[in-house]
């Protein structure tokens, strides 16, 4: 079931609607999310980083399971986390802090695997490339950096390399508001929007700016057409501009160069955009608290959802596993199923724990496909794996011993056979010689 989830910086909860039927699902309570701070972790549960008043030094990240409206797990990282992103199978959560640091957590154990200083100012948006090898981060100072996840965890390599990141783009002069990447992993293009009223298209393979497009207003959100012909830019003036990537634009029209049209509904500013999986429906969240679903082909509004009075700042289109739907219905009338509710992972760690960083403590979580029975499937721990490995090793050593024995036996047998053949040959030879000599003797006689 494809659902639209949306959250708001004011406490309106996380709204959830079926994209195709339009029916509202459960509303998850008490969420004041940061921009780009809503993530669906491996289709298993929802996570959102929370806005906090500037006085508190620590941030907070909340988890909701699909089936319950209440917050299930609360974690308090060392500093406020702004953007939050998870990889597709939900093994890791990556968050960008207000000091410019990026946090990398393992979901299953909640351990903070890595924290590194990425930017000079607060991180505003994060995303993973579609092969999940590159992490792209944008910051308040307009800087965009591309990180290779291999390099980030390679401490020696980091020291050797000139700079820890792959690329650092600093052409934006103001805050980066949103970024989106095309297909093709490390060969993709990325589109970034900034408060300096421009969108810029970058090439990840060549590491350079391909195009810079000036817009008449500040662009808050971008979404890329699946064919990568155009991208949609949601502006603060309430319009969604369509800018061409692949078409030749000869003359500049009323909006500016490369901008070929708009989707407009006379609404307040557009804050977030998302494409459905089929690439036809474009979902936009607005300052006025509504979520509009557009048909990108016909430029018409298909549906309007209403989340809150305040602005919407996150919209996601995710696939929600069907079992949880069944569960909610069960949940409502039977206390029995409550016991079977999917266990959410422990809260996220605050600091990188270097003390217990020995070999044994490393845990490996195995991602589960959502169709498998999630309720009873525990995570396989590292211990189990090491045991299996050692077993395998033992098995193999025994097997080789047996093999050697068998070969020895074979060898012995072969030697015996050779011996036999040799005897036979000698006998035959003798026989032949005798025969010949005998014949000669008879002839001469």
């Amino acid at each position, binding site marked *: 079931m494809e659902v639209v989830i949306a959250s708001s910086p004011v406490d309106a909860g996380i709204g959830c609607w079926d994209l195709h039927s339009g029916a509202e699902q459960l509303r998850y309570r008490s969420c004041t999310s940061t921009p780009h701070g809503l993530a669906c972790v491996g289709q298993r549960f929802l996570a959102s980083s929370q806005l906090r008043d*500037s006085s508190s030094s620590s941030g907070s990240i909340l988890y909701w399971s699909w089936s319950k409206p209440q917050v299930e797990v609360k974690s308090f990282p060392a500093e406020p986390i702004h953007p939050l992103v998870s990889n597709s199978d939900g093994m890791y959560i990556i968050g960008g802090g207000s*000091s*410019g640091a990026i946090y990398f957590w393992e979901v299953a154990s909640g351990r903070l695997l890595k924290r590194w200083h990425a930017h*000079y*100012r*607060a991180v505003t948006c994060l995303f993973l490339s579609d092969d999940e090898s590159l992490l792209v981060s944008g910051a*308040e*100072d*307009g*800087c965009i950096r591309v990180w290779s996840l291999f390099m980030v965890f390679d401490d020696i*390599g980091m020291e*050797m*390399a*000139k*700079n*820890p*990141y*792959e690329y*650092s783009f*600093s*052409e934006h*002069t*103001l*805050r980066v508001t949103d970024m989106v990447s095309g297909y093709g992993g490390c060969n993709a*293009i990325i589109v970034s929007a900034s*408060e*300096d*009223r421009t969108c810029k*298209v970058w090439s990840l393979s060549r590491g350079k*700016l*391909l*195009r*810079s497009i000036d817009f008449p207003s*500040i662009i808050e959100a971008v979404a890329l057409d699946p064919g*990568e012909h155009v991208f949609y830019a949601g502006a*603060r*003036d309430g319009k969604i501009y369509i800018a*061409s*990537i*692949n*078409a*030749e*634009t000869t003359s500049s029209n009323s909006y500016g160069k490369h901008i070929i049209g708009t989707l407009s509904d006379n609404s*307040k*500013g557009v804050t977030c955009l998302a494409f459905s999986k089929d690439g036809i429906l474009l979902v936009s969240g607005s*300052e006025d608290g509504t979520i509009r679903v557009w048909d990108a082909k016909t430029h018409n509004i298909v549906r309007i959802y209403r989340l809150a009075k305040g*602005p919407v700042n996150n919209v996601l289109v995710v696939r929600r596993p069907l079992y949880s739907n069944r569960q909610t219905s069960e949940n409502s009338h039977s206390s029995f199923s409550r016991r079977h509710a999917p266990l959410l992972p422990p809260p996220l760690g605050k600091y990188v724990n270097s003390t217990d960083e020995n070999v044994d403590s490393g845990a490996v979580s195995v991602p589960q496909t959502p169709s498998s029975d999630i309720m009873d499937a525990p995570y396989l721990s590292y211990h189990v794996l090491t045991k299996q490995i050692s077993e395998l090793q033992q098995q193999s050593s025994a097997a080789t011993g047996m093999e050697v024995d068998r070969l020895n036996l074979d060898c012995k047998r072969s030697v015996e056979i050779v011996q036999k053949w040799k005897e036979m040959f000698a006998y035959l030879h003798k026989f032949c010689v005798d025969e010949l000599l005998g014949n000669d003797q008879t002839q001469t006689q």
Partner: protein
Amino acid sequence: MARSKPSSSKKQPKRGVDFKKIKRKIGRKLPPPKNATNTEIKSKAIILPEQSVASERAGLAVSKKGLTLKELLQQTSHHNAKVRRDALTGIRDLVLKYPAELTLHKLAIIEKLRERISDEDKVVRETLYQLLKLVIFPALKKDVPGSLISLMMAYIFNGMTHLATDIRLMAFKFFDLVVQHYPSSFFMYAEKVLQNYEDILRKNHIYLQDRSKLKNALVGLVRCLSLLPCNRRTVDPSYGKNTETQGSLHAYELEVPKEHTDFSSIIKRLEDILPILVNCFQDFIPLVHPMSSLDAQSFDCMLYLLRSIDLSVKFFLYGIDKHQTDFGVTKPTYNEKDMPVWGEIATPVFLRKFLEVFPLNQLHNTSGKDEDKFFILNIEITEIFLHSNEWIFTSAILMERFLEFIENLLSGKIRFNSRSGKALQEKHLTSLLPFIPRLVSLVANTWKSRLLQAFTMAFKDCKPESTLNLAFLSAIEEMLLPSKRQGILLLDASEPEILDHQITWIRELPVLLVRLGDTLSSLSKVILHLLLRLGQYAPMNSSLAWEYDIMQHTLGEFYSMCLDDGSILYGPFMKLPKDCQELSVCCLYYFSSLDSLLLRSLVYCCLCDNLEPSVLFRIIDVLHSAYKIGHLQLVDLISFFVTLVARWKVLPGRLYTHVENAKKISNRETFKAITGAVCSCLRQMGDDALIFQIVQRVILDEIPLNPPIDNLCGMLRLLVILDSRPTKLSEQSIIILSNSISEYLIDAASYIPENGDEVTDSNQISICQYYLVPCFFLFDRSDKLLNLVLDLMGSSIGEDNSSLACNHDTQHTLDLSSRIVAVVSILLYMHQDIKIRRRLSSCKGEITRILQKMRLQSSNEMGNTLEERHKIQFSFDRLKIAAGQLNCWDADELKIISLFE
């Protein structure tokens, strides 16, 4: 056998018939054979009737001496040198006179001329050189067939290996000429040419006598070497370049093979040539010391030798760098030893030996000219040293000597004596400054502080219009901010001394910016970019960030300044081009708390007519963004917005009257757009109620100043946007508002179309609505306001207009009758609106009073002309009808009113 005999006897008589023997007598002449060809040639002398050249060659291109191109070309290979020379000058004349001849016969000309490259006669060669340089190459510049060059090159190489030294040196000069015009030709023949240079320099002692020749050859070498690629230190390429205007990004790109030259052969040659250059230079050194003065020729030779050394060192460095960057990303640098580093083995030894000669000094005789020369040479050597610094381990003593020299240079202890010295010094300093950051980061601490001291002093002393500033700024950027390539800081800002210097630089920047004015916008742009980078990259809560915040006090002057007498002095911001303005606006975003003083000077800029609207919108955008991340106080931002709306000058003038008022129309549209932008910002700020309170307070401060109608309208719009129903306006503010609204409505009434039923100018209707709609919203939300306003309107009719006129804007002062008309039209217009009609019905008392006042005025005979009275009467009737439609008067009341009639 028997048969054969008769046959032989028969044949005998026949023989005589076949070959008749002719008997001839000796001594007699034979008759000619019948088929003989007559070889006799008969000829007559051709006598031309006239020999005059001029008349015959009338249509042909000829030189001054009347010779055609063909003849001239033939004469170039004449055995007499004088004739050859004359022919060359003749060609020159001819080509200058008839340029078409050259393009037609270029191949023939070159083919013939090249033979003269190795001419024995010096004058001929010189003439040829001048001919090629001044006439032929410039003319052929556009179409350069490679064949032409190769035609020439064969003979040039021939000349280079000629036995006569004169010819050899001249050949280099010719080659220099070719390279000068067709730089790419060097790479085609690089190996061979360098080989020839090597040969000639090896035997330098032969030519030492004739330095001018050697100099010529060296000039050529310098030119060739400067074509080699090297690491160019540009100021900052990232913001200079613009993205290519590529139509579609995913389109198939045609891979254009880049002009690739194989440098390996050049490297090998250069490796050979470098020691020879060094030797050659050292040959000159003994000449320097004993002699009292250095003659110009040998000075030039030395200079060019140094330049060529410098260029080849640069080229080697480029090679090393290229290797590192090629593999830098994929391969860490640990396998450096495996790489075939260019010129790695041979060069350092020579260079070390060579650098030992530094500094060249002449202690005894210090005539001004000579000192300058030594100074220049020293600078050149220093440059080589700094280039090679990265891969030569130098002894500490030598290092000291160089550092001292650099320090002296920066601090200006060494100066040029001659008049042109200032410019020269700047030029040389520009070439040295890019090395300072690296040098400072590498040397020991004592030197670090001395160098920085000198650097800071020099930067402070530098005049704003000096070209040096650019070099200083890029050096400062490198020392202040983490470098782009490395991502690490060159200098450790935690050391207090370094920090002191950094702070001095930062403080100097806005001062420089203000002093520059709008004279050098490119330099201003660089400074602004540096400021922006500083704002972006300064670590939070560091002293650098703090210093950046402090900078806003001085930066206010950049925008505008309020003088003591109240007039405003606009800073350079207003005059700079748009990209600079945008950059400076972006800088505002990074101040961690924007000062209200800076905001004030910004407001003055915004209110100036000359500011482009797009920049104004950018300012609004950026300030709003700055507020969002907490860099700006809410109250400050709101008062900024309200001031902007309240004071922005809308040019007076009716929109629909004249076509030539196009500018004024756009001005009003701009104001509408500003109001819209401010409204949307206010709405996005969050808590509406709180913001409304602040906005209300600020607006009420502004309203008593009697702002023009447009500004008042803008402010009312701000209130309406934030207000809710029922109104949140306080009692007191309603009273203040009602005062100004009643006047405002009367002013706005002039825009109401005369007759609502007729189709009037749609533009006028929309303006009218634009003015009235915010009031209607307020009336709708607050009955009290409506009552008060109607009351005031009524009383304004009744009073003597003279008393009203004094406290009202004179421009809009109306006499009583038009005032009455205006009031009526407003009321009628309100009556048309359904919502307001409902509201109006609740305040019949006020309307009745107005009607009564009108009755009184119309009956008042004195001071009113007949026409006016008629107007009032007409209005009264209209209002009465409307009032009747309100259905709020019962019969008695209507009677009372009619009684007045």
